[in-house]
């Protein structure tokens, strides 16, 4: 075991996969010589050379399309979006081409799109967004969003080995803020499986990404008041792990859904609908969503803090639910 940061875990996953499989390569803006805006690919250019760590023109649709074409002839590209927000420029290639290739004509498209996402870094409306919602309604894509160092590495390795297009949402806020000991040996984390981040019995908090840490903080405080929270870390957003969601609801009968994505039509809306549809009888109270407000991400620290769900918001939702 050794201790690494969330960012280092991402780095290790790519490094090990590139060493293992010569078809794996990285492309994106400033990923080569500079090592990427967040330095996630630092040292890769020197190690793997110009053609496997490819600096591209500022052209998200162009290089995402190129990744798709390379994948169709046997490569396993990793696309780095400099900021997840810029993925909107590649929307068509992901939604019209990558997501539908296998269904339409049986052609596997093994690409990973790394999307550094999320706020709390004072990036403003174009450098802070959660983008999973844009793609959540697109059959054919897979979306993962690790919240831990262990999952950051294991899910990225799994995504690279997967034969489908995977959007890998890596939370910028976690890059250097969390550290953990992870195994030295090779491992992957199954795509499509949630995990229980905290076992509890009174109320379930279903969440993912950086919000898992917000939920854990809230749960610590709630525990002092005698409330036992169970936290479900979805890990894979698309497709959702229905079984894990329903199991926790059957256990605690009370649900808070927490995400940093804006509220309307978000992942929480779907999780909520799943619960109503499949285990309504188990509910003791309303399903409560705690999510970002339905606005762009504001820049100023005071406004951004109000935009992003905080532990206190989770606590008040849980307290409200405990009255049932």
């Amino acid at each position, binding site marked *: 075991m050794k201790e690494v940061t969330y960012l280092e875990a991402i780095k290790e996953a790519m490094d090990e996969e590139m060493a293992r499989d010569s078809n794996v*390569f990285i492309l994106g803006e400033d990923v080569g010589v500079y090592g990427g805006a967040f330095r996630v690919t630092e040292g890769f250019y020197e190690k793997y050379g110009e*053609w*496997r760590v*490819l600096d*591209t*023109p500022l*052209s998200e*649709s*162009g*290089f*995402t*399309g*190129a*990744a*798709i*074409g*390379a*994948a*169709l*002839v*046997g*490569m396993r*590209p990793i696309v780095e979006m400099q900021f997840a927000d810029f993925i909107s420029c590649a929307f*068509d*290639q992901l939604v*019209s*081409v990558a997501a*539908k*290739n*296998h*269904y*339409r*004509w*049986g*052609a*596997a*498209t*093994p690409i990973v799109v790394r999307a550094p996402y999320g706020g709390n870094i004072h990036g403003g409306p174009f450098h802070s967004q959660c983008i999973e919602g844009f793609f959540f309604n697109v*059959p*054919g894509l*897979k979306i993962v969003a690790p919240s831990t160092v262990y999952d950051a590495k294991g899910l990225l390795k799994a995504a690279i080995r*997967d*034969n*489908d297009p995977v959007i890998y949402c890596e939370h910028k806020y976690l890059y250097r803020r969390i550290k953990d000991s992870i195994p030295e040996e090779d491992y992957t984390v*199954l*795509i*499509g499986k949630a995990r229980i981040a905290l076992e509890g019995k009174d109320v379930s908090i279903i969440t993912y990404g950086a919000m898992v840490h917000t939920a854990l903080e809230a749960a610590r405080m709630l525990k002092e008041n005698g409330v036992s929270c169970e936290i479900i870390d979805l890990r894979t957003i698309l*497709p959702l792990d229905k*079984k894990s969601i329903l199991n926790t609801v059957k256990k605690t009968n009370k649900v808070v859904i927490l995400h940093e994505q804006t509220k309307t039509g978000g992942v929480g809306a779907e999780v909520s609908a799943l619960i109503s549809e499949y285990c309504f009888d188990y509910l003791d109270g309303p399903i409560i969503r705690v999510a970002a407000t339905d606005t762009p991400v504001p820049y100023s620290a005071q406004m951004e803090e109000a935009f992003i769900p905080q532990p206190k918001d989770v606590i008040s939702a849980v307290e409200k639910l405990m009255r049932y």
Partner: protein
Amino acid sequence: MDIKREDLLQLYYYLKLTRRLEDRVTSLYHQGKILGGAWTSNGTEAVSVGYGYALEKDDIAAPYFRDMGVFLIRGISAKRIMAQYMGKKTGVTGGKEGNVHIGDLNFGVFAFPSHLADNYPVGTGAALAFKMRGEKRVVAACTGDGGTSRGDFHEGMNFAGVRKLPIVFICNNNQYAYTTPLRLQMAIKNVAERALAYGIPSKFVDGNNIVEVYTAAKEAYEIARNGGGPTFIECKTMRMHGHSEHDSAKYVPRELLEEWKKKDPILNMEKYLMENNIVKKEELDGVESRVKKEIEEAESFAEESPYPNPEDGLNGLYATPIEEE
């Protein structure tokens, strides 16, 4: 460039097959036997046949929707294509996709997404892989004149130009994007001018002259194959039908169609073959009857083929399905 007699005869055969197959599709469409719409390349067949035939077996075609010749030349059978039009299980995509949305990696053909010019960056990526792996393979990517206004047209070419990738970009300039004439599509005279900004050698050819299209494509592929980077070829031609077979194309001046009718690519080639004493009339007639038979067989095959089951529509979403516990 001297083209071998047998190649000329094959080019003629594929021109004919493309024309007759799509003519039959048009008839079947009007009889209500085709699901959805029917898009044809009528009048512009020399483009797809020319650039498609010039490719080698291991190359990749990233076509657009008026590229029937490419599918046939790559080896996708008329039977599977006809079944595809009818939404049958035996169609190229088993009924998942319709009409010209044909792709099959076994034959080196990328399927066409309706979002025009999407295949420019996608084709560029295959060319990138070939260059990275040191393989002497090339890609031909095609779009129409309308598609050249989309960002992906420019983003794909720019990337290919910067990295000198082995790809040849083809444009079937058939003068109209649905109803929109070229003058409302771009402020320049030739589509070919667009490629120059990406450092890509560019030319235009008579898209109704199969010898010109084939020769230009063949030469460009050889340059690309030998590390010389991409080329752009604008094939100037004319869409003789509507955008799709439901469209009577009243917005196209009749005199323009009359003018282009005289330049029909098949008549052109017949004239070339006869005047240069390459073939006798009987040989051309032989091709006609061979093509007729092939299409009849394709139609029967398609008619007799089963439809997919409704539940087949749930299959194939993922290449790596989610593991159930």
